């Protein structure tokens, strides 16, 4: 069973992502901030990170660079309400990008493609 770490500051979106991914049969871990996500990495050993780009204190891009430095070369799917998401995704070498608001089928497909 593939594991997914969801790093998202908005509680509703976090819950939505959790339920959607659980329905797809993934094991889902959740973090409210980037720092919390980094702290969870060694414990949950995810196969993919679903990452919100716009978060206070530590944004998604910073989280991704930090994660790389800690030798967790993981596929990342970025999530954002900004249209710049696709540029940022390319910069970060993200495996997928989801623009809010999203269709849940597209959401699931993007994650599935990314996890391979």
């Amino acid at each position, binding site marked *: 069973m593939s594991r997914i770490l969801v790093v998202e500051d908005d509680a509703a*979106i976090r819950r*939505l992502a959790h339920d959607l991914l659980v329905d797809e049969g993934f094991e889902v871990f959740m973090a*409210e901030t980037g720092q919390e996500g980094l702290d969870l990495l060694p414990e949950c050993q995810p196969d993919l990170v679903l990452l919100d780009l716009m978060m206070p204190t530590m944004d998604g891009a910073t989280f991704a660079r930090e994660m790389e430095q800690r030798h967790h070369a993981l596929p990342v799917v970025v999530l954002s309400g900004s249209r710049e998401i696709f540029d940022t995704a390319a910069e970060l070498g993200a495996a997928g990008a989801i623009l*809010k608001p*999203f269709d*849940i089928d597209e959401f699931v497909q993007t994650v599935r493609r990314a996890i391979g």
Partner: protein
Amino acid sequence: MGVVMSQRRRLFVLLLAVTAPLVVLAAFFVVISVQEAKDRARQEATAIARAGTLATDSFFAGHIRTLNAIALNMTDAKMLSEPELRERLLRGTETSPEWDGMSVAGLDGVILAGSRETSAGTDLSDRSYLQQLFATGRPVVSEGLISIEGDPSVLMATPLTFEDGTQGAVIGQVKLGTLSAALTESLTLEARVGLIDAAGQTLIHPDRARVAALLNVSDRPEVIAARAGEIGTIEVERDGTNLLVASAPVSRLGWVVTVAEGSSAAYAEANAIALRGSFFVVLAVAAVFMGGWFLGGRLNRSYEAMHEAQLAEAFARERAETALRSRDEFISIASHELRNPVAAIRGFGQLMQRRLAKGALTDKDLRDYIDNIATSGAYLSRLVEDLLSVSRLEGGRLELLRQDVDVMAVIDRAVGEAPLTGHPLRVMRPDDPIEAHVDADRVTQILVNLLENAAKYSPDGSEILVEVGLRGGEVHVSVTDQGIGLPEADLARLFAPFARAANARDANIPGLGLGLYVSRRLAEAHGGSLLAASAGEGLGSTFTLVLPRSVGRQSAELEAQKVQPVDEPGTPFELVERAPA
């Protein structure tokens, strides 16, 4: 202004540097001119004195020549009778009206005959001038004599050799009236000429009393100097008056001619030059500095204008940049803040459909999903309301629909609309109802914002306190929480659009940063205000809405009131919201 003032000061220093040497030069020329004028005055006085000595000299020389001629005609005097001799002497006196008598004396000094009958037999042997004549064999002039009328005269004597070879003398008395007139006539102005004889007695002087008294002035410095052969001027103070005195010696005689003039009169030209010179120097300096002052003022103004223009330009640029930055920031924040609740509503809706279709929707999930949709929807509607309010405020299109409303009813409505989940609320209200002439919807919007903030920025379970009261003619509604408080540094910018307190961002609390901005603008549109207070970070906050009291209108008359747009820095742009008319 420090910079600006120094422009005028700088110009003054420059003018001072330029004019100071010129002023010194001008002053130097003035001094030179004054000196020259004084020299001229001294030379003039000296020239008059010298002319006086020449006149005196020739006066005496002329009369001595006459006496010499008469003496040559008197060699036979001893042969003649006294009347015959008197007759001849009388003819001698006719040579000039100035002769006041003549006589012939023998070596013993006794007069043989005189033009006056009484003269014969008078012994003059004790007279010093006669002794001098016999000793030197040269013509002499006596010291001055003054008649009873006060007219000065002198005696002149010239040697005479009789046919028998003995020595004698011809003596003549000369009145100095014409000499006096000649000396005085040569003068102008107030100069006083004096003729002082060898004994130091004043013989000629405008002051006749001096002459009558034969005033002895031999001890005066100008007389001493002239007797020593000097020709020149000295300045002395006499009887409280400063005098310029020129003096010159009359050749051989030991007489002195003096010309005295009051310094102020003598130096009138010099003083005039000094006065004019000083006046022009002062005038020039004053003109330069007045010019400098006005020029400096104009420079100052143009500099200020330039400075202000630069400042205005910099300010405008800053504003434009801030606006651009704010707009970018707004777009990214608004995208995030608006898209999150939309994503939640759409996502949960779809998720419910899917789980329903599978028959896998539990009651608990359903409740959670509906709660999430409702919460997101409410949040979204408040955001949209705030955004539209901003748009209307910026465009000056916000209209207040004022009515006399019960403030407590408005508070109750706001409490009902605000998301206060998990926070006990305490409302302290006065016993009597409070009416205010306000737009109930807008005041509700303000209070919902304040209540939502109070709940959002304070820990779950902490109490929120609402206090309502009347102060003066104003209604005060304050909302106090026990939350994260306000950093002092953020108090000032808290009410700017899209501004959020640093600790609010750090605490991961969502928000557009529009609520307080909109709320304050709405309060101000009512003629009221919105105030923030906090004891510091972590110590809670109090926001107080101040509204003017009801103005006692009879009916609940509808009143449309335009809100003027406020030109406020930091306003990012106008959100366009055009409702079809």
